[in-house]
């Protein structure tokens, strides 16, 4: 089943889906393993696996640090692929790769997508690859039946959203606000207007991310979005309270 369809079906059973995020190799693959176990056990619907990159331009301090330390610990792209393969085999939810374009570019785009497909990855989020620069990538994604997740931003015009949606698949990642990952988002009237512009531009499921960290946030999003994305919040949690805190946290979100 295609990712979009699978998410629609899941969504028909839940008011809102949860997508979580983690940085591979940070603090270690062992902790990643434990965290993913807790996430899945507590009902997470999709997981974004970020392959670390030395220049995480669109990320905030927490995730920058995770990227840097993971690389400093010796994390290689090959390790990330192997780990993804292990997770995809073990858990029955979609896994995505989130990374910056240089990682697949340097690997070789076709090889990377081919390999990702093989290990069971379902799609990609690449924040520095707009469709204008991603023709080859989009073609290959179609070829390998992988979802090239497109990103909407509050600054995107309606026309732009429609263009992006035309290139996208799986779902649309709606960045909740200007800025980088990790700071709080205000869910005000302009946010609602933005989400309804997103809704009008595409039939794909809508994921909302950037600054979502609590049950209240999720409640606000329920009915407006199909997926809520928890990013920095779990990284911070693991940092402060260890991986075992992730399960209860996730369980408490919905």
């Amino acid at each position: 089943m295609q990712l979009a369809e699978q998410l629609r079906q899941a969504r028909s059973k839940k008011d809102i889906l949860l997508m979580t995020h983690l940085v591979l190799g940070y603090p270690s693959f062992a902790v990643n393993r434990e965290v993913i176990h807790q996430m899945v056990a507590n009902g997470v619907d999709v997981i974004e696996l970020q392959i670390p990159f030395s220049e995480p331009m669109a990320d905030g301090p927490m995730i920058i640090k995770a990227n840097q330390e993971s690389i400093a610990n010796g994390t290689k792209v090959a390790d990330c692929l192997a780990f993804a393969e292990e997770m995809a085999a073990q858990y029955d939810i979609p896994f995505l790769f989130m990374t910056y374009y240089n990682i697949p570019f340097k690997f070789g785009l076709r090889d990377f997508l081919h390999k990702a497909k093989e290990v069971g990855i379902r799609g990609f989020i690449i924040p520095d690859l707009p469709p204008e620069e991603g023709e080859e990538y989009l073609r290959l994604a179609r070829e390998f039946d992988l979802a090239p997740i497109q990103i909407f931003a509050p600054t995107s015009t309606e026309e732009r959203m429609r263009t992006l949606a035309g290139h996208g698949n799986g779902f649309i990642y709606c960045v909740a606000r200007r800025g980088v990952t990790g700071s709080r988002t205000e869910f005000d009237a302009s946010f609602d207007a933005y989400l309804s512009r997103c809704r009008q531009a595409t039939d794909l499921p809508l994921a909302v991310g950037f600054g979502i960290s609590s049950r209240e946030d999720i409640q606000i999003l329920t009915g407006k979005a199909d997926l809520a994305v928890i990013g920095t919040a779990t990284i911070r949690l693991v940092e402060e309270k260890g991986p075992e805190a992730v399960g209860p946290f996730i369980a408490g979100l919905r």
Partner: protein
Amino acid sequence: MNKPGYFGQWGGAYIPEVLYETFRELREVYTTAKSDPAFWQEYLALMGSYSCRPTPLTHADNLSRHFGGAQIFIKREDLNHTGAHKANNVMGQGLLVKRMGKTRVIAETGAGQHGVACATMAAKFGFACTIYMGEEDVHRQRPNVFWMEKLGATVVPVTTGSRTLKDAINEAFRDWVSNMDTTHYVMGTVCGPHPFPEMVAWFQSIIGQEAHKQILATHGKLPARIYACVGGGSNAMGIFQAFLPDTEVELIGVEAGGKGLDTGQHAARLASQDASPGVAQGYKTMFLQDSDGQMRDTHSVAAGLDYIGVSPLLTDLWEKGRVRFAAATDQEVMAALDLTIKKEGIIPALESTHAFVQAFKEAGELDRDQAIIINQSGRGDKDIFTIAHAFDDPSWKDFIRKKGEEYAAR
């Protein structure tokens, strides 16, 4: 035909979606300005009355005689206001910011020259200003930090990554994606996403336009070779552009050879075998990166050359064989600096001195009736802490020690 924003296979605009509109507006205001002759006139007038353009082309008689070959000419970008070619770019972008109605500028800086230039432009135009600077560079270029602050800018030391120029660029982008409505990011060199490489090259083309006229007026014919140091590539593109159609003029870009190309501690992208194609910081070029695509640590005595990437325009010209690349080691740079100061009374910036090194290596090969131009991108005053340290000057150290004790005592 190339895709817009590409030079051969290099360039592009690999930007987060949130900046899509910002770049659209920037391209638009840039394109309009470029096709409006009044804009360039306004730019020339500003550079003529606020900076010191045209900057002279100095005949280095003593150095020419010393090497016994080509007549050496030096294009004096060091005489710009704020002491480097960076002024050309910031003033041009300042005029665009005014047209866009924005009220704040941000910039990355390595050597601090671009930061000082940008803070200066902001003061002149009345913009708020934040400068991102790798923490390591904050230490290497402390006087520039002091001046930026006096100019009213906020200097943010960047503690992520290798704490140098590339990390400052990342941090500037992170600011920009939050504040694009009010803020323009004044990229300091001919790198980054389209239209930056092309736009910055356009503003810097003033160097070569002047030099072309000047060398014909003084020397009567075109130079045999032109040397420029290459950090991002803005001063090099600045002087090269006007000579691109003159295929008999050889163009040489000089990168930071650091501790030597075989030590890995350098920043030579095109002069070494260590770089490979990549995409980062919004554009595609040759990067110093590992096999996974992680950027490597670079090294140079010159903070302004200490960078992982290089202009897509230059990578294209290199690939096409139009620009030759060489590298100068830290050690060669100190020797050439010493010689230039003593022979000509001119103090090039450590960055600029890289170009002098290669010119000195080659001047003797040429005839006396041939000319070469070295683009002196900036002055070395800013580098006093680095230079005095590198020359191991005992009385300077003593002076600093005493001043330090004086401050410690209070």
